């Protein structure tokens, strides 16, 4: 009888030990799960950076005077929207080039020199209020994959003869 009591008490102690171990492991696992699933905080500074770059790039580009008779890009984009087949005077380019091609080439260079410098992928496009198809479309190398998910966008409307046109810059990632 005495032996049985001792064995019973021992079994109880073992069970309590097991329960304590299970509890400790459970708490540790919960901590681990908490840290693993918490993920990264929303990078507000990155968002601020992207917003600032998107908006300032657009407004600075459209008021910049180009090499071609000091036309601003705003004027050139308007001209491109009005007539997409119109060629620029010879003094603007050695080979014959349309206004749209010129704008595309020059803005592509500007964005490459500024946004690529800070490793930002982008999509730049111009469309009119009547037609959503792009008159001008420029995108960086990896924009196709990155611009599918997270985009910071800025749009600047420009008034031209036939209504409004919209210049948009999407910064991706």
């Amino acid at each position, binding site marked *: 009888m005495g032996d049985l009591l001792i064995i019973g008490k021992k079994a109880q102690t073992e069970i309590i*030990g097991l329960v304590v171990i299970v509890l*400790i492991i459970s708490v*540790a696992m919960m*901590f*681990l799960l908490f*840290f693993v699933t918490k993920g990264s*905080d929303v990078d507000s*500074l990155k968002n*601020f*950076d992207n917003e*600032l*770059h998107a*908006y*300032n*790039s657009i*407004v*600075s*580009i*459209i*008021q*910049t*005077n*180009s*090499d071609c008779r*000091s036309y*601003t890009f705003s004027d050139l984009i308007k001209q491109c929207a009005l007539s997409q087949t119109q060629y620029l005077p010879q003094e603007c380019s050695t080979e014959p080039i349309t206004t749209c091609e010129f704008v595309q080439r*020059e803005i592509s*260079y*500007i964005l490459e*020199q*500024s946004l690529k*410098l*800070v490793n930002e992928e982008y999509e730049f496009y111009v469309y009119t209020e009547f037609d959503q198809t792009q008159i001008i479309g420029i995108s960086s190398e990896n924009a196709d994959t990155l611009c599918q998910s997270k985009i910071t966008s800025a749009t*600047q409307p420009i008034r031209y003869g036939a209504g409004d046109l919209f210049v948009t810059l999407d910064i991706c990632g």
Partner: protein
Amino acid sequence: MIYRKKLLRKAQIQTMETIAVLFIFFILIGLGLIFYGSYQKGKLNTKLVEIQSSKSIRLAQTVLNLPELASTRKGVSGSYVIDELKLDSLKFVIGNNQELRYGLYQQKFGNSKISVKKIYPKTQEWIIYDNGIQEIKSQYTFFIPISIYNPLNLPSGTYSYGLLEVTNYG
């Protein structure tokens, strides 16, 4: 006598068992602390970068709103416009007037580098202020696209596209 020996042996085994359990327990606690410590370290580094980047942003805003640089002719609403002539003048003043450099601008800009890059149509660079430290522990660079206005290009001045680059040293 034999019974006593048996009991002693059993007690020894139980003590060893307790020691083993405690050993494993402390190893687990140690691992947990290491894990938590590395997590906190990562978090702290992120916070430091955040502080530095917000310092750079603040500095960039200060530079853009300096009357010594801001163009009096406003371009498209919301754009930051810097006057090219003022840029040349400020660079000259900071480079040559030590009293102003150390008395005024060093207090404003601290340990940083401020430069303006003209990208289009021509390329040019102005390093307005450069006050690095010998042992750089960390640095953060911030860019803002800007317009650079040159009032001398007739008839009404021209705008170029550029970048304001602010590097804050820590």
